[in-house]
């Protein structure tokens, strides 16, 4: 076991995938010589060479579009979008081909690839560098949408995603890249795609979240335990498509109350989907309306306003208290 941050953990997963399968290539802007703008691909060029770690021209559409061609030929491209805010240039390839080829050809061709992107706010970046648009990909049939939240699950989920036969959109919460360290096993470890994780067990209320929001959620949970002895169950979704309905249902059927927390806009967001599922599966167990603490339905503010904008532990605590009072 080694202590490492998320950047190192993601790097470890790619190193392992590159070592175990010659068909894996890493491609993107600045992923080679520069080792990625967040250093996620550190040392990979040195260890695997320029035929495996490929610096591409600045064209997100062709990074994903050529990855489609590589995938057709049996390779497993891992594409890096430098920021999720620039991935819209590739969205037509993702929607039009990556998500469709397996269905279109009745299973003749697989699109086994991973498209990694840092997402979310909190790093004082300029416009287009802070959004959370996971709902766009979760809404799109044919894609798996995975969001890591800690070093250990980042490594396990990325390795699993690269091995996975379906295309995976892999969101990395950039605010958590270097925010904390965690024990990561030395031996390759994976976690299943499509499974949420109960990270804290509790009996009074369930908080459902993912990505960088897991940190303020856990802070709120600790505070509420200390301040008023509240027993909170916390679910980290980890995969937002397909959503692990069973895990949500089991928890909320037990606690009867739920708060969903995410950075992305509220309308048609992951919280809306989670809430709808809870209404469908746990209606008679619910003691209170499901609350959503989310980004508002506005464009993500420039960084001078972002700390005020982002959901925080105080807002989560208030929502929990109010939900418990119903």
């Amino acid at each position, binding site marked *: 076991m080694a202590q490492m941050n998320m950047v190192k953990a993601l790097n470890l997963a790619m190193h392992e995938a590159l070592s175990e399968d010659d068909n894996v290539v890493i491609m993107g802007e600045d992923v080679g010589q520069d080792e990625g703008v967040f250093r996620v691909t550190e040392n990979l060029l040195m260890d695997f060479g320029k*035929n495996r770690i490929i610096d591409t021209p600045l064209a997100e559409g*062709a990074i994903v*579009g*050529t990855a489609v061609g590589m995938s057709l030929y049996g390779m497993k491209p891992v594409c890096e979008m430098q920021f999720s805010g620039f991935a819209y240039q590739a969205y037509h390839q993702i929607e039009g*081909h990556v998500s469709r080829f397996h269905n279109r050809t009745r299973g003749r061709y697989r699109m086994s690839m991973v498209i990694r992107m840092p997402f979310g706010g909190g790093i004082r970046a300029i416009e287009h560098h802070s959004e959370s648009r996971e709902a766009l990909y979760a809404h799109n049939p044919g894609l798996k949408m995975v969001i890591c939240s800690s070093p250990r699950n980042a490594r396990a989920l990325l390795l699993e995603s690269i091995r996975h036969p*379906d295309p995976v959109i892999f969101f990395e919460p950039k605010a958590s890249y270097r925010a904390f360290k965690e024990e990561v096993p030395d031996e390759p470890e994976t976690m299943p795609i499509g499974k949420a994780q109960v990270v804290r067990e509790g009996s009074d209320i369930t908080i459902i979240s993912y990505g960088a929001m897991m940190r303020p959620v856990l802070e709120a949970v600790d505070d509420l335990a200390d301040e008023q002895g509240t027993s909170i169950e916390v679910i980290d979704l980890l995969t937002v498509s397909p959503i692990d309905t069973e895990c949500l249902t089991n928890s909320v059927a037990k606690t009867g109350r739920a708060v969903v927390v995410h950075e992305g806009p509220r309308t048609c967001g992951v919280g809306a989907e989670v809430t709808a599922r809870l209404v469908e599966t746990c209606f008679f167990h619910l003691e209170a309306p499901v609350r959503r603490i989310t980004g508002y339905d506005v464009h993500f503010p420039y960084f001078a306003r972002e700390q005020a904008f982002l959901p925080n532990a105080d807002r989560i605590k208030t929502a929990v208290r109010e939900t418990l009072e119903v």
Partner: protein
Amino acid sequence: MYPIRDDRPVGTTKSAQAPARPGEIGSGRLVVRKLNRDRISDVPRKTIKVEHKLEYLQILDEKGNIDAAHDPKLNGDTLLSLHRLMLFTRLFDERMLALQRQGRIGTYAPVRGQEAVQIGTSFALKPGDWMVQSFREPGACFHRGWPVDKLMQFWGGYEEGCAVPERVNDTPIAVPVASQIPHVAGLAWAMKLKKTDHVALGFVGDGGTSEGDFHEALTFAGVFDLPAIFVITNNQWAISHPRTMQTRAKTLAQKAGGYGIDGIQVDGNDVLAVHTATVEAIAKARKGGGPTLIECVTYRLAMHTTADDPKKYRSEAEVKKWEKRDPLIRFDAYLRSKGILDDGMDEQVRTDIKTTIKAGIEKYEASRDVDPRDCFPYTYVEMTEELKTQAREFDLALEREGVSSGH
């Protein structure tokens, strides 16, 4: 065709806005052009020499004549195969239009006039090579091993028409214009990384050259020196938009220069020229010589799809002019002049093709009773729990509605 009503500058109709100043939008003049003409510095400019050759190739003239000294001397079997494939494409196309009118398939994109492009190019590929279609290459597909009934299934509204036959290394029809062109580069890239001597060849239209994907794909192919052949089927019309609306450049082939790759323009109605240019480009690519852009100048003699009426946007005279350049008439004349083809043989080939197409239609129509539930299992390699739940819901709904399984 509509007459153009007027050419008043934009923003001047019933507008309370202030009059435009020279150089602004609305003045009818563009700043860019003014600056290009009127230099504001008299510092002497150096000339940058950009080396880029652009060739034009025609082997058969419009009447099928050939300069004997330059006859590519393809053997008789090859020539007859090219003839059969072009004729197949033509007869298939005619049959598809009839089937569309009878409601036996949906909207269809006809090929008439463009046969030499897809046959001349695809004929140069080997089985290990990949072909990336646009949506108007049924003849090339037929040559590559797609059965007739499968070609019909796509236009009949069945995904089965995109289920590429085993052992055929092609992509299925790609509907979004030019989005398939990065796939050509990606396939070629994989071939190069895996150190094979295969090539990838893909089709795009003149309209598709305006798309970002075309630009990005050729950028990648050039930068990484990929064994890719990009074939532009310049059929002059992107639905109602003429070729001149896609670029101010004189040719589409010259775009290759911007990517540092070789480009050639060929007479797209001359199957020998198309085939020769493709054979050369493929041989170069196999030897590690990089990508080639081949612009095939041809004409879409029919409508874009059965959903539009070309009379709205182009003249009969233009169509008549291109009918005289029909690739089949030209090649037919050449084969007859060489004594390779006669009336009897031509009739026999037509009969064989019609028999094949008829059998294909029968097979297609026998395959039409499909199970709507089949929309579920291929979304992912394994069905997710969520999809299993939704599939059960769909199943119950269909049961209530009395829809059979189809099998």
